[in-house]
């Protein structure tokens, strides 16, 4: 009985420690880039009448975590990609420093508009906990998809 109670106490303490870490610990990421690529052969597929959507209408970034939009053109011809023309083999790296909603004219989208929503850096506390929960959920979803 005493052993069970002690185990429960240890478990609760461990959970509290994890919760405290998730709420307060700084966020570290391997890269702040949010990459999108035009694969080789995209222009040929478009010319053949296929609808190829690479960039979503709205891209969501987070300051200090993923706040750099990285666009790469791996195709053989220049392409309008998001807000600019990118040459074959070229990349365009756009950093954001202010949380806001950015609208770019973009001929690659039917609406003619592409939005980049930059969220503030998750503050210690509820915001950071919520960000980590969402991040873990996203990662586990991706690992399931890859499996």
């Amino acid at each position, binding site marked *: 009985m005493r052993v069970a109670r002690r185990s429960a106490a240890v478990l609760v303490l461990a959970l509290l420690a994890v919760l405290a870490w998730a709420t307060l610990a700084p966020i570290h990421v391997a890269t702040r880039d949010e990459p999108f690529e035009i694969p080789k052969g995209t222009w040929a597929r478009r010319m053949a009448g296929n609808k190829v959507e690479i960039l979503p209408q709205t891209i969501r970034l987070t300051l200090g975590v993923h706040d750099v*939009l990285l666009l790469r053109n791996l195709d053989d011809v220049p392409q309008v990609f998001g807000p600019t023309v990118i040459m074959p083999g*070229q990349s*365009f*790296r*756009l*950093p954001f420093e202010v949380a806001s909603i950015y609208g770019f*004219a973009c001929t690659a989208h039917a609406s*003619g508009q592409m939005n980049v929503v930059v969220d503030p850096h998750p503050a210690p506390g509820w915001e950071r906990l919520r960000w980590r929960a969402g991040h873990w959920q996203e990662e586990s979803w991706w690992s399931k998809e890859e499996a």
Partner: protein
Amino acid sequence: MNRVLALLLVALLSSAGAVEAPALKAGVFSPPHPAPEFRLAGSDGTPLTLARFHGKVVALAFGYSHCADVCPVTLATLAQARRQLGAQAGDFQVVYVTVDPERDNAAQLKTWLGAFDASFVGGTGSAQALDTVDRLYGISVKRMESANGALFGHSSSVYLIDRAGRLRAMMPYGHVAEDYAHDVRLLMQQ
């Protein structure tokens, strides 16, 4: 011993990021390519080409003189950035290409740009010539009719071209003059 100390110093500087090139505030093209050339009528009475400004850092903007919101802000910001450059201002050139060939002739552009900075040069031409330039730079232009005449929704970013005529970066709308001055100074040093 001295060699060991020198190696340690290099390792320290590298780990502190001291030897890294400072980053631009604008979006950066990598590797850089030559900025697409064009030839338009210049607001200063001389044909407008980018080759004219080789040796200077160029800010290339697109818009029209009847623009009520975006263009005045962009041009005022660029004028402020140019003033912040002080003695280096002579090595910075603003080029403004119109998207409204019907109303923006060379004289109209000269008057409009002169209200911001007398050194700014505008470019105009036929609808076809301007359309070609827009396509080269991925500029989106959407014409809308209003009671006060035509309005144009247009790309509001500004391209930065280095002294060698290479398209180096694109500054999205909303950046302050300090960001432009920062990037232009960096490009001037390269």
